[in-house]
């Protein structure tokens, strides 16, 4: 949390109302170079999809339906909700050079291009074929994605956090509250305001009262 905040150099970025989201993170150097303040680009049409309807998450295995790599399956590494984009690892790539300085042409690397949500389909774990997916509720009341063809539940995949922290193996530091202390319930509902409870707990006596004030 503290180290990751330092690494990400988190700062509040105010974006213009018609900002066009691209592959660069808003606020990064590349984005600031491409969209300096005052940039106005043509608006792109983005189909509005609610958070409840969206079904593609990082770590999912999906198959590409159209494009250069149609028919191939890959893992989702990035989801850009503002453009309904998913980025698959190593698929749908074009080549660009990095590290160009002066005469040196740098090295060519493959860089993934994003795909729209309707250009990919989730893969059914039963037969490993692309399938339509619906959101349904289990017996326990949990909301899960269910393949339309086979009825199999597609669980939400585990994707490592960007700051590299694995919650299961986290050891408490000197400034960390343990799980039991954080989830302990100590609140007793009473008909007293916070100020009255604090006065009672600290033993503060106050017999003076405010003067009556009239306002219209």
């Amino acid at each position, binding site marked *: *949390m503290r180290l990751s905040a330092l690494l990400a150099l988190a700062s509040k970025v105010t974006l213009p109302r018609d900002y066009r989201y691209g592959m660069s993170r808003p606020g990064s150097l590349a984005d600031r170079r491409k969209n300096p303040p005052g940039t106005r680009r043509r608006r792109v049409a983005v189909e509005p999809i609610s958070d409840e309807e969206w079904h593609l998450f990082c770590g999912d295995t999906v198959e590409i339906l159209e494009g250069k790599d149609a028919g191939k399956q890959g893992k989702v590494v990035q989801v850009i909700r503002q453009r309904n984009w998913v980025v698959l690892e190593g698929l749908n790539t074009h080549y660009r050079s990095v590290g160009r300085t002066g005469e040196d042409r740098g090295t060519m690397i493959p860089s993934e291009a994003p795909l729209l949500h309707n250009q990919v389909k989730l893969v059914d774990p039963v037969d490993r074929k692309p399938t339509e997916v619906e959101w349904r509720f289990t017996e326990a009341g949990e909301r899960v994605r269910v393949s339309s063809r086979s009825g199999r539940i597609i669980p939400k995949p585990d994707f490592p956090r960007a700051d590299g922290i694995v*919650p299961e193996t986290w050891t408490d530091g000197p400034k960390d509250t343990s799980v039991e202390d954080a989830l302990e319930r100590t609140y007793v509902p009473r008909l007293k*305001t916070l100020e009255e409870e604090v006065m009672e707990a600290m033993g503060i006596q106050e017999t003076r009262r*405010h003067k009556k004030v009239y306002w219209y």
Partner: protein
Amino acid sequence: MGLLSGAARIVVRGADRMSRWTSKRGPRTFYKGRGAKGTGVHGRDGKFVQIREMVPELVVPELAGFRLKPYVNYRAQAGADAPLTAEQLFREAVAPAVEKDFRDGTLDPERLGKYGFEPTQEGKLFQLYPKNFPR
């Protein structure tokens, strides 16, 4: 603000109208604060009289043996409690006593003050309506 275009250079004359008017500008007789809350009044002889009630006092309990720390373990899940509503508060704080007295037959509709009912906010230090505390 001077606008430079090509070879033409014009000089805009006059005071700076665009910057904020702060306490750092103006003549030396100009006084303007920066938003700090006052702690007293100026007396007739020019002296400043500090009023104790206007000086904020932090009431902090003994923190020896306090187990909550600034940060929380990553494994702790978000709490599943709903925000407290007035009905829930009533059910937990007042309803048991009222129900017990009703079953014993000692419930007196004229004397609801012992369950916490306040017919008027007069005489209270922290009045709920109109609210006379800042929180």
